């Protein structure tokens, strides 16, 4: 039981990651791919935040009478990673818009057929 209590949220996070990853590699629509990428990354963020948690701790802001703080380092890392994620999303979506304009479609198998492969 303690085994499950120790790890259950990591397992769910792994499941979420894989759901996102699956959307990225299986989706045919480019917008959905981007959504998948975001889900994938957000789940990784959850992995980091989970490891920073201390049971019984509080947010790492100095407060009176609190001795146990959660680890601030993962929070910092993930703040950076979120920004990186949104930057990638913006560029990806801009590409999608251009692809739509150039090919008239954003379905991967459709524009693949419009040019020679490569």
């Amino acid at each position: 039981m303690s085994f499950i209590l120790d790890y259950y949220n990591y397992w769910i996070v792994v499941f979420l990651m894989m759901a996102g990853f699956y959307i990225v590699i299986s989706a045919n629509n480019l917008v959905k791919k981007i959504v998948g990428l975001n889900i994938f990354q957000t789940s990784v963020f959850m992995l980091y935040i989970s490891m920073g948690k201390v049971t019984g701790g509080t947010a790492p802001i100095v407060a009176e009478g609190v001795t146990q703080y959660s680890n601030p380092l993962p929070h910092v890392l993930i703040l950076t990673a979120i920004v990186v994620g949104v930057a990638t999303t913006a560029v990806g979506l801009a590409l999608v818009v251009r692809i739509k304009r150039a090919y008239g479609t954003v379905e991967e198998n459709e524009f693949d057929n419009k040019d020679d492969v490569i």
Partner: protein
Amino acid sequence: MAEFIDLVLLAMLAMLALTALRIIFLKDLFAVVMLFGIYSFLSALIFLNLDAVDVAFTEASVGAGISTVLMLVTLAMTGRKEKQSTHSSLLPLFVVLVTGAALIYGTLDMPPFGHPDNPVHQHVAPRYIEESPKEVGLPNMVTSVLASYRGFDTLGETVVVFSAVIGVLSLLGVRRKKKKDLESGLETHRVLHVVAKNIIPLVILFALYVQFHGDFGPGGGFQAGVIAAAAFILYALVLGLPKAFAVVGPRFLQWMAAAGVLLYASVGLYSMYKGGQFLDYNQLAADPIAGQHYGIIIIELGVGITVFAVMLNIFYAFGSQAERSNVQ
């Protein structure tokens, strides 16, 4: 009490899992994007639950805010239905299963969740928790670590945002419409106009609060930039892009984005000039703590400026592409 919190976490994780599963099978992209917004909000709640207040704040404003808005604008241009995929989904499934199995294998040896004796809480972090209020002088340890100990990462993060705007501008550019487009903006919505005009100043005020209160509570340059950008995005949505351009033009925003990065970097250069290492805020004033304070305020301002300019400019770029006829 501990059991209760676990249940809340578990419930939220379960909802997340359901959302993710639903996204996999949905073909209506509009619904997919909305579900993604929900997913983002839920994860922000989880972050909150796990004591990561700053992260939750950011995730809510970015994931559920900016990302979702950008996706919706894109959808307006690309159509909202996903077509049936022709290729087999067995290979992706296989790849995902293998990856997932590897990760599960990895979890079996992990330090238990939430245990205070875990290596992450033992090695580097204690210094941040115990010393940073003395060394940096800020109550919010996340801000201390973000802006000072790992200031170089944050500079990198700002540059990433800057790269994003370079990418979006080179791909889309900001088109100025010559003749005044009747359809631009929501001209006929009188109520919306009045409310928006009254709310926007409040939002900007809030952004400034977040910007400068980041040292003491959750918040900081990044969140503030996003909120301020949201205010202008609201303005652009309600009154139309041309009017928004009249307030802050895209060209000016480019300069602002560059200026923010330069402001950040100049703090580093100044500390080098003073004889310290790059981004060594201790050199900025006679008293190291004061130096840290000045440094953090300035670099947070740099981050805020860049993020605001970049987010707004990206929205401009997308917004000026959208053909209104597609917007439902």
